């Protein structure tokens, strides 16, 4: 087993990997940019090294700096997390050259499956159905527009190097094409350093359902079942769950077999995800392979009981997947929401800043994969994902009830978060019936949220708190309330203040 793992990432996923390392008795080595010195992943690591200025192109995306830290700290393996360089074959190659085990697939498998165009070619060769569209990156926007015309609008423009909804644009008609192409390619360049795009047909109300696979270095490839990720805003997943509300044994078997077939064809090793679109007739179309851990991996962990990060590490160390795992049966239901520093009431603008106060939910059925803490300043330089909140229950209904309970307990000041969005989604009748598709949330957000019932008690409490807050700002003592002498007039207020003083005394 490895002795020391370099974690080439930041935020909640770096913390997640550090925890797996600690549980396995492996030392974890964090890296941090100047904006991340105080970040949770630095505090919880065994070792931590600076790798440059805040912009990720000068720090987290610098392969040479990462390899220098690996060498200096004596790491024998590297985990890339997701995002940043997780699907970059050059990093995997640099690791191989430096004698550091890359925890993920080989660079060849990454290229054969991870590239959206090559992945689709491979899928066609091994009888996995695909969505109509281009297979290769398209150089000239004019050619792309011609193709769009021939397969028919709407079409989806996608970054060849992309993921997570970045560098992706839906184009509904020819008039929108030029602007969509410009925005998508500039976003792709910024996010991945690669402006190339391809396009495909946009299906009507499809579901996004993906299959988690695990493959060891000894030829065993297993499916751990599906995740339903249809609730998306601008192609970015915001709620994920397992099992899918529409899943049948038959469909799960067929999708699992297709995913395993594709992984075998690409000589894939380690954890990966095969993404599909599924239409109302239970037809599924291959979308792409994510050759890495997914943001939403906890959903699979909660229903299978497996620890995917530990399994990734074990596979990279050459361990065999035990035969029994092929027959894993999911138990209960799990659902994840991604807590972002963004303002749902203001067009989901990012909301970086200092977290002034925070209360996080705990208790039965609740898991928090946390990346932040009270007092920490969310930097402007990175993705605004703060933490992931995951609920488990015996049924989908119990899981949703627990998640709503946890969201009710969650409170934060100093920054805005999208918690209110989840409260809304989790009370939508269509969502409760499991009737979602990839455009469902974007359509929902066109409709103003129903005006909440007026709660006069909550309004009164708010008024009183605002006045008390102002009183505290004005400082010192309320004046002009004649009557009681200082001795017998000790308000609970002042009483508390005094008790605090006493508490602080040695």
């Amino acid at each position: 087993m490895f002795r020391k793992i370099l974690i080439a990432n930041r935020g909640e996923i770096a913390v997640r990997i550090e925890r797996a390392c600690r549980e396995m008795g492996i030392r974890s080595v964090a890296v941090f940019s100047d904006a991340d010195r105080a970040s949770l992943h630095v505090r919880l690591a065994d070792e931590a090294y600076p790798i440059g200025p805040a912009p990720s192109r000068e720090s987290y995306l610098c392969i040479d700096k990462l390899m220098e830290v690996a060498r200096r700290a004596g790491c024998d393996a590297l985990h890339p997390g997701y995002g940043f360089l997780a699907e970059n074959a050059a990093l995997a190659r640099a690791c191989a050259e430096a004698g550091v085990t890359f925890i993920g697939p080989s660079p060849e498998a990454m290229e054969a499956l991870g590239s959206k165009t090559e992945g689709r070619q491979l899928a066609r060769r091994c009888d996995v159905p695909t969505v109509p569209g281009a297979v290769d990156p398209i150089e000239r926007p004019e050619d792309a527009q011609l193709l769009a015309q021939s397969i028919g609008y709407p079409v989806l423009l996608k970054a060849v190097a992309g993921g997570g909804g970045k560098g992706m644009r839906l184009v509904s008609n020819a008039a929108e094409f030029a602007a969509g192409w410009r925005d998508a390619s500039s976003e792709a360049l910024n996010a991945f350093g690669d402006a190339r795009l391809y396009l495909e047909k946009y299906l009507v109300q499809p579901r996004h359902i993906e299959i988690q696979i695990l493959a060891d270095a000894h030829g065993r490839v297993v499916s751990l079942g599906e995740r339903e990720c249809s609730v998306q805003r601008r192609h970015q997943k915001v709620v994920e769950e397992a099992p899918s509300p529409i899943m049948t044994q038959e469909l799960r078997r067929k999708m699992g077999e297709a995913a395993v077939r594709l992984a075998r064809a690409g000589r894939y090793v380690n954890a990966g995800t095969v993404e599909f679109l599924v239409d109302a007739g239970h037809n599924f179309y291959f979308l792409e392979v994510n050759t890495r851990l997914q943001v939403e991996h906890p959903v699979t962990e909660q229903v299978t009981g497996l620890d995917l990060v530990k399994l990734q590490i074990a596979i990279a160390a050459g361990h065999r997947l035990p035969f029994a795992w092929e027959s894993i049966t999911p138990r209960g239901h799990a659902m994840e929401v991604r807590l972002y520093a963004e303002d749902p009431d203001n067009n989901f603008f990012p909301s970086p800043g200092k977290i002034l106060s925070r209360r996080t939910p705990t208790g039965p059925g609740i898991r928090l994969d946390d990346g932040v803490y009270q007092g920490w300043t969310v930097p402007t330089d990175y993705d605004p994902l703060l933490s992931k909140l995951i609920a488990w229950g015996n049924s989908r209904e119990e899981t949703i009830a627990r998640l709503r309970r946890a969201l009710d307990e969650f409170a934060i000041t100093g920054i805005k978060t999208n918690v209110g969005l989840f409260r809304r989604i989790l009370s939508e009748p269509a969502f409760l019936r499991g009737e979602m598709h990839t455009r469902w949330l974007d359509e929902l957000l066109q409709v103003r949220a129903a005006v909440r019932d007026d709660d006069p008690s909550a309004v009164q409490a708010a008024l009183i708190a605002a006045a008390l807050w102002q009183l505290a700002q004005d400082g010192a003592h309320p004046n002009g309330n004649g009557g009681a002498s200082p001795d017998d007039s000790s308000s609970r207020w002042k009483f508390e203040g005094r008790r605090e003083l006493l508490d602080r005394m040695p």
Partner: protein
Amino acid sequence: MKYEVHMEGKTRVVELERHGAAWRISLDGQPVAADALEISPGVYSILLGGRSHEVRVMIAPDGSLQVQSGLYEFAAKVVDPRSWRGRRHGVLEAEGRQQILAPMPGKVVRLLVKVGDKVEAGQGLLVVEAMKMQNEIRSPKSGVVERLQAKEGQPVNAGEVLAWVE
């Protein structure tokens, strides 16, 4: 102590009076059965006739108060009617002419209009990039772009004025 609190389009008078071991609180002159406790700065536990409320108060970038009361969120302004301090809370009362403020720190990557353009309510004025996302800033009203403070490539702070629409 008496305060005027402007919230949700209404103005209410909150009176806080010490009384023995607790506060005597009244709203618009009506006493309410409230027990208030500061849990930590800006976090209050308020029992109102038995109902347990947790309220969080903080200052928004525009100087108003943001008040979270359970699952509800309100914008509020507080004025002490006996003092002049209230004056500083008057900034929001601009009417026809609208300031366009940067909602978060970031960088202006694209201007979509120029001074003198006619714009519709909801029309994009400029694009700010922050946290790897490009975010279009829209006009809150129909009118004419009176001034454009922002330049392409310019970093901006939250609350900074980007433009005026008249």
